[in-house]
């Protein structure tokens, strides 16, 4: 990276926002240097509504205590769309989060934001990536109406586009740094419900486990979602979780990945640029992943963020970081995704 084109060093380091699906993951995140930990309740009010995952009131209270003792903040994701007839459930989740003393809630639905802003004016609001706000004007809409303090950018913008957004909004901008790569605009994908009846927007999960079938055939391992064949894996292939946008399908006789290969997003090499343009926080994906994953990613990104903040111009991605991240990535490739324009 050419030092001459970089603007002045940022006054504040970027925050590291790490996932926690379980209390041990929360501890792993806090112990390894997360600034913020985000998590969800055990129901469809969050977009990682999977069996056995997430927090009840007691484990959340303990988690908040633990994080606060060590100087970290806890953000609760209430980032699904309240479904007709069950508004009270989402409303109650906002109230619970507020009464437990979380540091912010991450919300997608405009109606729920309106409620939270009115009922809990002191509660800090973040706009979820599921809110699909892809321009500064959309983000400013949520700022003007509900006073959101931070917005998570959907993984669709190039670095240049993200930079323009940041320059034109008073809202802190959080971007995805690492993890499973969303191909579709978050909050705008119904592929999962088309095959299974459940999607992130409606039920808080993509490709629900109960709709997945693995079948070992003589020649291949098959994965199906809601009966739809997503992929067939030969002996040498590496199977991935059967989400539709990672499937192999046939278009005009060509069998390939029409949407995306199983890859992970990894933006370590962009850190100096992201810091220079004023990104407030870097988000790590993976509330459904294990404490080992959280520990590894948090440790690597803490080190990288500190190194970048100390000396942006001399920042180099260490091979050891990439090795550690490759060891826990889905698929064997990493990509810059939409940050790098030719990906589109």
């Amino acid at each position, binding site marked *: 990276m050419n030092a001459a084109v970089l603007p002045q060093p940022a006054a504040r380091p970027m925050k590291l926002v790490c996932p926690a699906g379980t209390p041990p993951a929360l501890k792993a995140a806090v112990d390894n240097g997360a600034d913020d930990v985000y998590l969800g309740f055990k129901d469809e009010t969050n977009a990682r509504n999977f069996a056995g995952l997430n927090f009840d009131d007691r484990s959340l209270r303990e988690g908040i205590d633990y994080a606060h003792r060590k100087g970290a903040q806890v953000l609760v994701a209430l980032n699904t*769309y*309240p*479904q*007709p*007839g069950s*508004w009270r459930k989402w409303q109650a989740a906002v109230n619970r989060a507020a009464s437990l003393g979380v540091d912010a809630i991450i919300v*997608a*639905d*405009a*109606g*729920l934001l309106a409620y939270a802003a009115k009922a809990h004016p002191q509660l800090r609001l973040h706009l979820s990536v599921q*809110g*699909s*706000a*892809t*321009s500064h*004007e*959309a983000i400013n*809409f*949520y700022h*003007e109406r509900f006073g959101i303090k931070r917005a998570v950018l959907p993984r*669709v*913008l190039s670095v240049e*586009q993200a930079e323009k957004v940041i320059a034109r909004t008073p809202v802190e901008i959080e971007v995805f740094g690492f993890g499973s790569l969303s*191909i*579709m*605009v978050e*909050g*705008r*994908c*119904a*592929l999962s*419900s*088309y*095959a299974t*009846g459940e999607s992130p*927007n*409606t039920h808080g999960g993509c490709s629900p486990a109960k709709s997945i079938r693995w079948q070992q055939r003589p020649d291949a391992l098959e994965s*199906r979602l*809601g*009966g*739809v*064949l*997503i*992929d*067939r894996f030969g002996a040498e292939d590496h199977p991935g979780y059967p989400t539709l946008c990672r*499937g*192999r*399908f*046939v*278009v*005009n006789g*060509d069998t390939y990945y*029409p*949407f995306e290969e199983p890859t992970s997003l990894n933006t370590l090499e962009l850190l100096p640029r992201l810091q220079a343009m004023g990104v407030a926080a870097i988000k790590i994906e993976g509330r459904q992943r294990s404490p080992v994953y959280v520990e590894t990613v948090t440790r690597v990104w803490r080190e990288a963020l500190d190194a970048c903040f100390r000396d942006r111009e001399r920042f180099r991605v260490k091979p050891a970081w990439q090795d550690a991240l490759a060891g826990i990535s889905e698929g064997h490739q990493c990509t810059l995704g*939409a940050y790098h*324009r*030719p*990906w*589109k």
Partner: protein
Amino acid sequence: MKLSLGPLLYYWPREAVLDFYRQAASWPVDTVYLGETVCSRRRELKLSDWIAIGEALAGAGKEVVLSTYELIESDADLRTMHAVAANAAFRVEANDMAAVRALSGNAPFVAGPFLNVYNAATLSLLAELGAVRWVAPVELSREGIAAVVAEGPAGIETEVFAYGRLPLAVSARCFTARYNNLTKDHCEFRCIEHPDGLALDTQDGQHFLVLNGVQTQSAAVQSLASEIGPARAAGVGMLRLSPQSTGMGEVVAVFREAADGALAPHDAARRLAPLMPAAACDGYWHGKPGIVSEWGRAHERAPHAESHA
């Protein structure tokens, strides 16, 4: 029950578009949505062209609405959205919150299907901001729509996606370009070769999705032609029919007759079948996976069994 012609989701040659809307002027639809909503690189028609088409349709007695982009990425996208929002001639359908912001306080608008209105609180908010009609997200079931209408603000009109391949997802990446080993910035506008989308099958031969540039649609064609009574009971006031390249006039005629009670539900389904580019589906409406055809299960001897194992 009113009928609307949804915005054209595909990329057709200019002449084909002009011809389509010349014909539409004589179809029994109440409202026509115009404009490019999918991809800002599609420029066979400029905003002024769309407005000219709109004027002709308005002259034929149609309500004309201009729709904004489903996904805004660049400054140019924002400028186009503002030009649409500020047009003096026609009402606007907002498909993202930047468009809502541009319209609120300035003009009544239609809250488009991509605004994710899943509950009455969000609908009330949009109504306060000036929405006079909302289009339900495709995932929302009849029961869900009825609940939102019952709990929502009075006087707002409800529209549902009643016919066509379902727009299921949008991406920053162009899948038609990817199929052709091209990047979006150098896509050679290959969408124009696929007037009803580029078919995508599973490896065991199930017709599953179609690629439409940055948009992904269902391969199956959603049809609620046999559900007009229940739609009315749920509070739906307008049925959206999504343009396809052939037989659209016939499709409109079937829906008009069915809505007027001149065609029994079973006959409507039977007449539509040969007009569809693929099998029918209606699962979302019934609270099931969208790909399912409840009508097919209930009324045909051989339902589309390959669609759902």
